[in-house]
């Protein structure tokens, strides 16, 4: 109780103070408030994760009814992720925002929204009253909207912001619909009513309710085809906000899905198949589009979609596990999903911070214009490299651990004789490596063109390494990435309790023997990953020892005999993925602009590609265009002519009076004819 009170007081205090401070203090207060909030909530969260279920019932108002605050292990887990990402984001943002220190009012708004975003995210994890939940949800959406449109001078930023706002609204509408359904049946806003409702209804009712929730949360999480806001919002926001959005805000959608799985009693098998299907498509589609992007942040945004797909595969497998009463599958699926949620929040925020460093030193996000930053910004380069490796799921980093768990889940599901199950699993088995492979293509492209080679356009001033203020939070993230990669068993053990919630659905036993065996395997993975690191070091060391004595000649890159290489000769990012693009073209929507080289003495030639999202074109643009056309047909109504205005009234009254009469006559006529 005291903690919650303190929590609220800190929010109010910070929000009240920020507008009156000077710019530096605005930042400091924001960071301090974020830290304090994180600390306060982490106490509860850590307690919940170690088994002390926290529950408190607030009286609420006459409108909302009693508001239960329940922190179980699942909430605790997500709260810790949120807190960590917000702390690194706040520290990174403190430095990042120095470039904008003249926009004092914007920064106040930004700081307040930042605190509110954190608080509302935490609230979403713990509130278990529909109305309170929806309010927290919307505050989260609105505050992140404000955070996104920080650079509101740009037209695209506002556009992206509105896009985000509208899709958030559709999301909340779907959630509202689902909550109303429950409230109608059980007349209670408590989340427990969801369980009561679905337990009493048929399994299909549960599935329908779940799907309603799922669609709502999927918009926030960015499942295809509900993802279209995401690639706009991420590039528009400042780097730390992109990091947080991708790291935790979209994860709250995952939290929602998991929470509903815990609450709703339904046909888990069917639900599992649906999630698995959507997730595989999401993963492949996300990465397919990520590869063709030219904007670094947009590329990262599409990768978030891909990773949500991977998490979704885990959840889908877990659900199938529940449905099949296969505890191993349940355990591994959800463990993979949860761990990947954590992992993705780490490496994706790190990648976005890295992209922020690039942006602030090179002043562009266009991959085609960047290059050779590795030498100018060694720290950022290394950090970005590690994060890239991690996001590709390569050992010895954390991404591998969670993907490994999901793989293990996939293989452990390869049993029995259910053809539907097997084909689902084969789908996952096809999807996962393909996603991994494509991610590799994508990140070699991104890292290779941004940090390696030579700069592809001459910047006004030479790029400089980011300051320590930005690097320290990034290194903190890095530490965790490597930590999870090398000592995964610690984190798997921490997942025991959240996982027990899921495995508990179909077995009375809390902790599982499977946990032990998985932990064992996982610890081996960690050990061997460490060994790999050592082995690589050893080979490198031997190489160094041997080559130390040998002559080293600096020279030019091999240019097929051409000895005056210029940066324009470098392979570009577009060319790097050209063969991929050619293959994937039928599935993508790429607008091309080509200027052919002609005649004997040709002028300039060139080619541009502008990737567009086919799902967006079909599902958003086209219906929207039709809707607009439809609306435009009715714009004669307010035509300024008074006579028409009177006519509306006359027509209304006449129709209301005449139509039922005519209908009656027609009906009696029909009856009469029938008699004949």
């Amino acid at each position: 109780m005291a903690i919650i009170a303190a929590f609220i007081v800190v929010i109010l205090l910070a929000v009240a103070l920020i507008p009156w401070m000077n710019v530096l203090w605005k930042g400091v207060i924001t960071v301090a408030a974020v830290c304090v909030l994180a600390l306060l909530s982490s106490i509860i969260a850590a307690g919940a994760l170690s088994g002390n279920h926290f529950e408190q019932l607030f009286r609420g108002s006459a409108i909302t009814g009693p508001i239960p605050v329940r922190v179980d292990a699942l909430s605790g887990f997500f709260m810790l992720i949120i807190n960590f990402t917000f702390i690194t984001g706040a520290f990174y943002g403190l430095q990042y925002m120095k470039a904008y220190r003249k926009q004092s009012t914007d920064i106040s708004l930004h700081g307040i929204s930042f605190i509110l975003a954190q608080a509302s995210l935490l609230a979403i994890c713990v509130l278990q009253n529909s109305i309170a939940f929806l309010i927290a949800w919307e505050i989260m959406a609105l505050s992140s909207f404000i955070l996104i449109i920080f650079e509101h001078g740009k037209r695209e930023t506002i556009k992206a912001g509105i896009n985000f706002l509208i899709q958030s609204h559709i999301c909340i509408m779907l959630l509202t619909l689902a909550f109303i359904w429950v409230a109608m049946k059980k007349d209670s806003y408590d989340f427990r009513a969801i369980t009561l409702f679905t337990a009493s209804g048929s399994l299909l009712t549960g599935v329908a309710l779940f799907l309603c929730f799922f669609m709502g949360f999927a918009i926030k999480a960015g499942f295809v085809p509900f993802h279209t806001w995401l690639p706009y919002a991420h590039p528009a926001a400042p780097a730390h906000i992109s990091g947080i959005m991708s790291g935790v805000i979209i994860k709250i959608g995952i939290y929602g899905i998991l929470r509903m799985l815990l609450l709703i009693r339904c046909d888990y098998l069917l639900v599992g198949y649906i999630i698995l299907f959507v997730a595989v498509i999401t993963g492949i589609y996300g990465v397919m589009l990520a590869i063709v992007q030219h904007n670094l942040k947009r590329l990262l945004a599409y990768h978030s979609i891909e990773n949500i797909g991977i998490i979704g595969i885990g959840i889908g497998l877990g659900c199938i596990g529940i449905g099949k009463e296969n505890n191993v599958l349940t355990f591994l699926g959800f463990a993979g999903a949860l761990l990947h949620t954590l992992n993705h929040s780490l490496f994706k925020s790190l990648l976005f911070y890295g992209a922020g460093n690039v942006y602030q030193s090179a002043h562009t996000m266009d991959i085609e214009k960047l290059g050779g930053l590795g030498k100018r910004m060694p720290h950022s380069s290394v950090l970005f490299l590690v994060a890239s490796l991690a996001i590709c799921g390569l050992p010895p980093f954390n991404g591998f651990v969670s993907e490994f768990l999901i793989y293990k889940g996939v293989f452990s599901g390869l049993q029995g004789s259910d053809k539907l199950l097997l084909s689902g699993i084969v789908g996952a088995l096809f999807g996962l490596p393909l996603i991994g492979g494509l991610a590799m293509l994508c990140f070699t492209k991104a890292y290779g063109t941004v940090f390696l080679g030579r700069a592809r356009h001459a910047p006004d001033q030479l790029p400089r390494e980011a300051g320590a203020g930005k690097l320290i939070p990034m290194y903190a993230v890095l530490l965790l990435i490597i930590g999870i990669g090398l000592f995964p068993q610690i984190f798997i053990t921490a997942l025991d309790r959240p996982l027990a919630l899921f495995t508990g659905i179909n077995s009375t036993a809390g902790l599982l023997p499977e946990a032990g065996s998985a932990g064992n395997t996982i610890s081996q993975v960690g050990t061997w990953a460490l060994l790999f690191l050592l082995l690589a070091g050893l080979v490198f060391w031997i190489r160094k020892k041997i080559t130390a004595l040998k002559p080293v000649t600096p020279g030019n890159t091999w240019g097929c005999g051409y000895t005056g290489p210029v940066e324009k000769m470098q392979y570009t990012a577009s060319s790097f993925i050209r063969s991929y693009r050619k293959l994937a073209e039928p599935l993508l929507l790429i607008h091309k602009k080509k200027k052919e080289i002609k005649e004997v003495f040709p002028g300039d030639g060139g080619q541009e590609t502008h990737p567009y999202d086919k799902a967006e074109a079909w599902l958003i643009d086209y219906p929207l265009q039709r809707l607009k056309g439809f609306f435009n047909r009715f714009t004669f109504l307010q035509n300024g002519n008074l006579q028409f205005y009177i006519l509306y009234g006359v027509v209304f009254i006449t129709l209301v009076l005449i139509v039922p009469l005519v209908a009656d006559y027609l009906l009696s006529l029909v009856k009469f004819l029938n008699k004949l």
Partner: protein
Amino acid sequence: MTGIYLAGAFGISGFLFFNRSRVINYLLVSAFLVLQLGFTIYEYLHINKPELTYFTPDALGILLLVTLTIISIPAMYHSYMYLGSKQDNPGHTAIYFAAMVALLTSVSAAYLSNHIAVTWIFVELTTLSASALIYHRRNNRSLEGTWKYVFVCAISITLVFIGILFLSFSLSQAGADDLSFSNLLRKAPELNQFWLRLAFIFIFTGFTAKLGLVPMYTAGIDAKDKAPSPAGALMSSVLMNVGFVGIFRFYTVVSHTTVHSWANHIILIAALLSIFVATVYMTKVKNIKRMFAYSSIEHAGLVMLGLVAGGVGYFAAVLHIILHAFIKASLFFQQGQIYRVYQSKSMYDVGNYFKYNLTGSMVMLLGFFFATAMPPSGLFITEFMMFRSLFEAGYLWVLVVVMLLLTVIIWAFGKNIFKLLFSAPVAFKEEGVEKIKPVESLSQFILLGLVVYLGLNPPQEFLHLIREAIKNLPQ
């Protein structure tokens, strides 16, 4: 007390009309506000006690009267701000305040009247006083707005009168001739169906002009656009509520008859069409005030949906109309400030308001969130309840259509608001921009704060009043 109030207020209005002195004008307006406040408190304390035969301060009347009183104070304040910045001639100012006082008084009386014919008289008076406000600028376009408003309202009020005549036919069948609401309610089951239907359709159509519903919403848009912004605020809030009172009270009567479901269908059609029309024009208009006006149409439609759905929807409808009044009033007040900065209402001329008036832009931002029913706005709660009641009443398709339309409205509304707040204006000269003091926006913040408070954590007494107001509806 009602008698004193009416006499006093109309007296003040008369004095204001003839007075040309600034100081006396202040005094008279303050006197009116004190009178209004006193009257409100008195009526609140003497709830459900009939006065002058034709006035009963019932729960609904009290709720709306309190709303009016709360809005009237900033309305007067913003009127001074508005007129002060324009250096108007004293004659126009005098007419302005006289009309405003008359408007507020007749609206208050219309809220409290317990007799349908008396309500009708005061509604007619509101048209008169409102038209004087609309014509304040005295140019071609305001003349056009006034003419349209007066004409459409005159037709509407005639329709209401015809409706009342039909109602009296119906009532005479039941062997009674007292047109007071309580009597109507008592006789409701005996009313002749045929006449009642006619009465309902005419009265409903007539009152839509005030409430801002399809079919007679049209002239109200022009009126809110052309009226000075404080007057626009009143027209979009308290004057709208007059239409609501008229429809609500009569609907309460109808709900006890066999015509109930038929009436529901009519209201449903009108409400859906209203939301639809609002959507169509929200995506199209480029005039901030007209946009707000269309937003009011949308909310009127929502309120009516609440009535149609029944159950918890009744509660939501009453709460919604009150909260909407606060939000719309503050948005219109803020629009006055925007106009002072840009000297334009057109979307093409405004922009980057965030830079020129930080406090005002916060009002705008919050007002947008609140008007589109995003939490923590109280409208979120009411819309949630309305959706719930629609769901419960089995109008799932209506719910889906409404949700879709509301989403489009948010999109259109948001696009314009963010253009206003954040995008740089075209060809706007920064020098000589009027600086607006933050304190001028204080009242708007208070109104918005009320929306949160009343929506999320309403005091018991308030809830009790709303429940009292809807107690005669079938539960």
